[in-house]
């Protein structure tokens, strides 16, 4: 078995003159949960579609599960597209069995597994309900079950959490972990950082059509300095307190806010102790993935705006 379930290299896609995806590469370790993060319109869905061979890239290649082409390993893949699609006239159990049958699962076995999955997720009451009678979230859960009913080795979920209520989001997270524990590799896209933070072993951040970051969640968070909130016991002279804090410290109410790098924690504690201003409250925390994501996207946007401005100036001078 290959170390990587997904090996996409230099995927590029144009829609007319617009470069929707620009040389995106993904390497998803087997047995991991991998998140593709990015703002709306970044190129996540198109990247996933090219990775799966649903649409052909203009440049680049994709290998799944060690196969030469994505099409050669279709039966071992489960896919939940961003735009949910089910036949409204089908009953839930049949819809799941149908999706399993498309991937080579026997109809009867598909129906049996559908019943098992649905009862585990508390959906047994709608097992013979037609899709058109279900709520959007419920239909989404049916489709999710349909994409994993054949026990695939690779599960690709495009924005799986959108449209789900918190209870179903919790169920979905549970399902994702269970599938990973079974041995499957999970690749999913999202722009909701909380899910990625809780689930992902590794992430890629795509912005403005390009991959801007690849690594673990901790590595992403480490892109930003740690955040400190300090409330001194002696609040008499702010200037005296500030003199012992890093430059850029800001007083908001009773608390000072500032950032420090990884190796600066102990020196900071020593300085505060030595200053004699005392400590009423002190919190040192890593930034959330959300902050790292916003930081990266803003940097990209700023660069993009600068590039645009430079191009405009060059064009005007020419």
């Amino acid at each position, binding site marked *: 078995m290959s170390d990587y379930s997904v090996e996409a290299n230099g995927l590029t*896609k*144009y*829609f*007319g003159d*617009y470069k*929707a*995806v620009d040389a995106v590469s993904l390497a998803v370790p087997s047995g991991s949960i991998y998140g593709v993060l990015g703002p*709306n*319109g*970044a*190129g*996540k*869905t*198109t990247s996933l*579609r090219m990775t*799966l*061979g*649903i*649409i*052909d890239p*203009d440049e680049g290649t994709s290998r799944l599960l060690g196969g030469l082409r994505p*099409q050669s390993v*279709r*039966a071992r*893949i489960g*896919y939940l*597209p*961003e*735009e*949910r*699609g*089910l*036949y*409204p*006239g*089908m009953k839930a159990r049949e819809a799941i069995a*149908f*999706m399993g*049958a*498309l*991937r*080579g699962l026997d109809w009867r076995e598909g129906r049996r597994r559908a019943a098992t999955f649905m009862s585990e997720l508390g959906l047994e009451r709608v097992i013979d309900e037609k899709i058109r009678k279900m709520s959007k979230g419920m239909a989404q859960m049916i489709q999710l079950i349909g994409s994993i009913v054949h026990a695939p080795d690779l599960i690709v979920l495009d924005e799986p959490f959108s449209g789900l209520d918190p209870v179903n989001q919790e169920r979905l997270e549970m399902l994702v972990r269970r599938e990973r524990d079974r041995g499957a590799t999970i690749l999913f896209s999202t722009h909701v950082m909380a899910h990625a933070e809780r689930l992902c072993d590794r992430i890629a951040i795509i912005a403005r*059509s390009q991959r801007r970051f690849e690594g673990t969640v901790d590595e992403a968070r480490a892109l930003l300095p740690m955040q400190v909130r300090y409330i001194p016991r002696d609040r008499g002279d702010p200037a005296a307190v500030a003199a012992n804090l890093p430059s850029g410290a800001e007083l908001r109410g009773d608390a000072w806010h500032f950032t420090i790098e990884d190796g600066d924690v102990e020196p900071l504690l020593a300085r505060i102790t030595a200053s004699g201003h005392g400590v009423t409250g002190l919190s040192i925390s890593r930034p959330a993935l959300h902050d790292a994501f916003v930081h990266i996207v803003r940097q990209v946007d700023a660069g993009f705006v600068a590039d645009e401005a430079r191009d405009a100036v060059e064009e005007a001078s020419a």
Partner: protein
Amino acid sequence: MTPFIRNMFVVARRDFLAIVATPTFLLFLLAPLFMVGMGLAGGMGASQLADKARGAGRIVVIADPADIEALRDADHRLRDALTGPDAPPLLAFRVAGPARIDPAAITREKGSDTYAVMSGPLENPHIVERNADGKSGRYLTLLAGQVLRDRAAGPVAPVKPHFESLQNGGASIAAQQSIGFGAIFIIFLLTLLLAGQTVSSLAEEKGNKVIEILAAAVPLESVFLGKLLGMLGVAVLFIAFWLAVAFGGGLVAATQIDPAALDAAGKAGKAATALASMPATGWPFFLGIGLLYFIMAFLLLGAVFLGVGAQAGSVREIQMLSLPITIFQVGMFSLSAAAASAPGSGLAHFAQIFPFSSPLAMAARAATDDAKAVHLLALGWQAIWVALVVWVSVRLFRAGVLSGGSGWKFWSRKKSSALSSPRT
């Protein structure tokens, strides 16, 4: 079973059940009843009108009583030989009296159409016609001439002919061509009614976004062929239903017929002989190959319609495609019908080779030509074209619709649905 074929049957099964297991299918199944009912009503009305028109027309002779008798006798004899559309209108008489009867006034009388009025001496009659050079005037001239010839020749013994009908004389070319044309018409009608539906077959998947699931899970060729198979299954079910109804109706009708008459017909063996000798290849082969050609016609035209319909971005576009599709089908029918009327001609060969008219033209050929091996060749040729059309349709669909217009554009792919918008 290979994964490709298995996938094809999964899609076909879904489509077949999605169509058949709905109340609207009953309406679809019974639709021919409405068509037959309307046809019968229209036909009866037209027939009544025609009968009425035939009965209402007349030709009139103004003559002496002696001439009237001679003319009536001649009319009886001539009318026997002039039947069908050549039959002259009813002949009416007016006795010529001292007062002059105006022929033009007779033509204006209400209650019936008067096509011609003859008056004056038979040697030199005056004929007033509604239409110049009409058949009615010439018939009246013929009548006058016949009476004059009878009078000149004197009484003649009536001819007593002995008729002998030719039995087991083999099928006539005209009858075989008629059967061939019948096969073309039936296959055309069935494909017109049933294959055209494939044009909107992918609309459901594009509308509810299932197409992306299908495209990710199975080769699109499986999807297209599966859809064709599913629709073919519906068509075959439709035909089987009506064949069963016809067979059942025939059985019921047979129980109502006098057994003695049936027995007599069986002993005479006329029907059986006629049935066995009509198409050049024989009825069993002809019916079997006809069914196969219907399947190929359905698959070929269905594949074209499916491919074209898959490019449509909206229901309105699909509706707009219906007219050219119907015209295309009628074109293939006309080509095949023309070919059937000239077996062995260059046109016939062209129609038999041209893939989209080939099933129709080859079915007609089976009625007039007893060669059987050529049909195997034709079926293979048509199957290759089904595969080719599906292959091209899938490429166009993938390049034009799935890839958001970076490939081939049907007209303006940016407005189409499915995955065409640059979702990112």
